[in-house]
């Protein structure tokens, strides 16, 4: 048999290959919902050709094979199949000519959409899957801060795909929480330089302290939040749990950490949308979001308005559906998931678990509290017509490492040059919380908080003024000692009043 085969893409062709490569070649495997989703996803990203790499040794499968499958009586193979997807049509002879160093061939990175490893198992065959995320469209901008380059070598041809790995849960060595953890730890492994465990290693770490009522393998009882936390600690990270019942806060917290490149694990209850019957609990790895047409509104009555409330989709690796599956939020914050009407489920989040580097000590809740308190005072001053604000501020809160933030400031065209350079030259901690006050899309000022500081400390370290009018007025208002004493941010404005009030027009426009 040749080492490869080239097949024109169609969802049916994908389904046939998946069936053929499963152990026992059961047709039901190719008809599974997640295979259907992958066929639909690959169609939507305009896949034209599949290259089937018949023999592929996959590190994660091999770890699980060595730890578990090899000791079964059935003779499960140790090698996998890898399917590569291209957005260009080409034939087997054209692919062969590419291997023969043809000058002009279509097997190139620009056309490469990623790969799926097929595990030689009876049912759960979707192994490590690295596909490009959804592209932006005219009416929808999508943000996937976690994806990064995954190098691929296809018979000597170097390719790469920007992705976060996904794989289907294996009910023997892994449950859905294991798959979500595996994806999330791929994201943090590259970011925080820790070892990336295989599913079997994650399940072992998660169940190391479990009691006798739960078997580790085969893992049919799933994992709870404590076990997920144990698995996160096993790679040297610290788990942070955030209550998920308020869907604005879930969006805010998830997006806040995602923007620093940190994926989150969302634990939810699932209800069948049609019958409203509880289906069970599920875990997904949140890896992207999309700001839709939802209007920003306060998270509770008369409270701070967060921009995260306009997120109408969180994208996640959901092993029940597939990679980059959408959790859709409606205007009331209700969440639904499922890639067709028949499979729609209602999502009721319980907890968001964030795997964090130990130096990120200040949680998002602390910053939200500070922003809510400051916003409350600014609202009082606005109501008294002491600030030139016609509408309430909209707050954008997120974590950033200082390199990302500096790059953003370096590229900023909104800041006067002198101010931009002075901020670039300043010393900041490795991780900072950023809180941007906006009116519409216009940035008014950006607050920086030290994310590595002590909980008992103030954390506020700097402010970057964008709008000269508002910042000048804030500086003047903060000249009053009673107002200044309310919040450190007012004290900062007062301390910088010489720069902000003296020549506002020049500092805003003069030296860009």
């Amino acid at each position: 048999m040749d080492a490869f085969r080239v097949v024109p893409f169609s969802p049916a062709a994908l389904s046939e290959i998946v069936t053929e490569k499963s152990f026992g070649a059961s047709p039901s495997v190719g008809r599974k919902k997640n295979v259907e989703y992958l066929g639909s996803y690959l169609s939507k990203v305009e896949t034209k050709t599949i290259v089937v790499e018949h023999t592929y040794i996959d590190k994660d499968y091999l770890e699980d094979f060595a730890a578990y499958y090899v000791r079964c009586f059935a003779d499960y193979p140790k090698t996998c199949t890898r399917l590569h997807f291209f957005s260009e049509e080409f034939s087997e002879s054209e692919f062969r000519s590419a291997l023969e160093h043809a000058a002009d061939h279509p097997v190139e990175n620009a056309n490469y959409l990623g790969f799926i490893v097929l595990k030689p198992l009876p049912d759960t065959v979707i192994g490590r899957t690295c596909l490009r995320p959804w592209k932006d469209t005219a009416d929808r901008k999508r943000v996937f801060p976690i994806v990064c380059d995954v190098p691929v070598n296809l018979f000597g041809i170097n390719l790469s795909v920007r992705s976060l790995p996904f794989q289907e849960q294996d009910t023997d060595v892994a449950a859905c929480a294991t798959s979500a953890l595996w994806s999330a730890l791929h994201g943090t492994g590259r970011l925080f330089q820790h070892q990336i465990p295989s599913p079997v290693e994650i399940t072992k770490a998660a169940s190391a302290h479990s009691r006798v009522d739960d078997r580790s393998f085969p893992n049919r009882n799933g994992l709870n939040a404590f076990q997920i936390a144990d698995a996160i600690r096993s790679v040297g990270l610290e788990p942070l749990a955030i209550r998920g019942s308020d869907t604005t806060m879930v969006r805010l917290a998830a997006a806040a950490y995602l923007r620093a490149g940190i994926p989150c694990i969302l634990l939810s209850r699932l209800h069948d949308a049609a019958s409203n019957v509880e289906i069970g609990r599920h875990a997904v790895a949140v890896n992207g979001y999309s700001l839709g047409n939802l209007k920003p509104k306060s998270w509770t009555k008369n409270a701070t308005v967060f921009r995260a409330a306009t997120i109408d989709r969180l994208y996640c690796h959901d092993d029940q559906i597939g990679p980059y599956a959408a959790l859709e939020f409606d205007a009331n914050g209700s969440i639904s998931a499922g890639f067709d009407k028949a499979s729609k489920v209602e999502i009721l989040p319980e907890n968001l678990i964030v795997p964090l580097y130990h130096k990120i000590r200040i949680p998002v809740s602390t910053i939200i509290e500070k922003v809510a308190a400051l916003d409350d005072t600014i609202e009082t001053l606005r109501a008294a017509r002491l600030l030139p604000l016609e509408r309430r501020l909209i707050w954008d809160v997120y974590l950033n490492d200082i390199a990302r933030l500096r790059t953003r400031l370096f590229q900023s065209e909104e800041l006067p040059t002198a101010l931009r350079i002075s901020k670039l030259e300043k010393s900041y901690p490795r991780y900072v919380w950023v809180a941007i006050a906006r009116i519409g899309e216009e940035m008014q000022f950006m607050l920086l908080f030290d994310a590595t500081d002590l909980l008992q400390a103030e954390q506020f370290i700097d402010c970057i003024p964008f709008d000269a009018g508002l910042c000048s007025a804030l500086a003047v208002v903060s000249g009053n000692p009673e107002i200044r004493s309310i919040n450190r941010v007012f004290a900062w404005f007062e301390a910088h009043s010489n720069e902000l009030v003296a020549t506002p027009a020049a500092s805003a426009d003069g030296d860009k």
Partner: protein
Amino acid sequence: MAELTSHDEFAPAELRARVDAWVEGKGRKELDRTIRSAEKAREAVRAVLRVDQQTLSNPVTL
């Protein structure tokens, strides 16, 4: 970007005078209320983000 002029109600000197007058008048009560409501806002955020311990032991099985 809003520009400040000497005729603007937000011109520095005029604004400062208005701020001081406001704080001396009804503003003081407003500021006291703000300090209390800021603390309530903090508490509300804390309450909504504080983990419900009972949910942590729910196994995720799907």
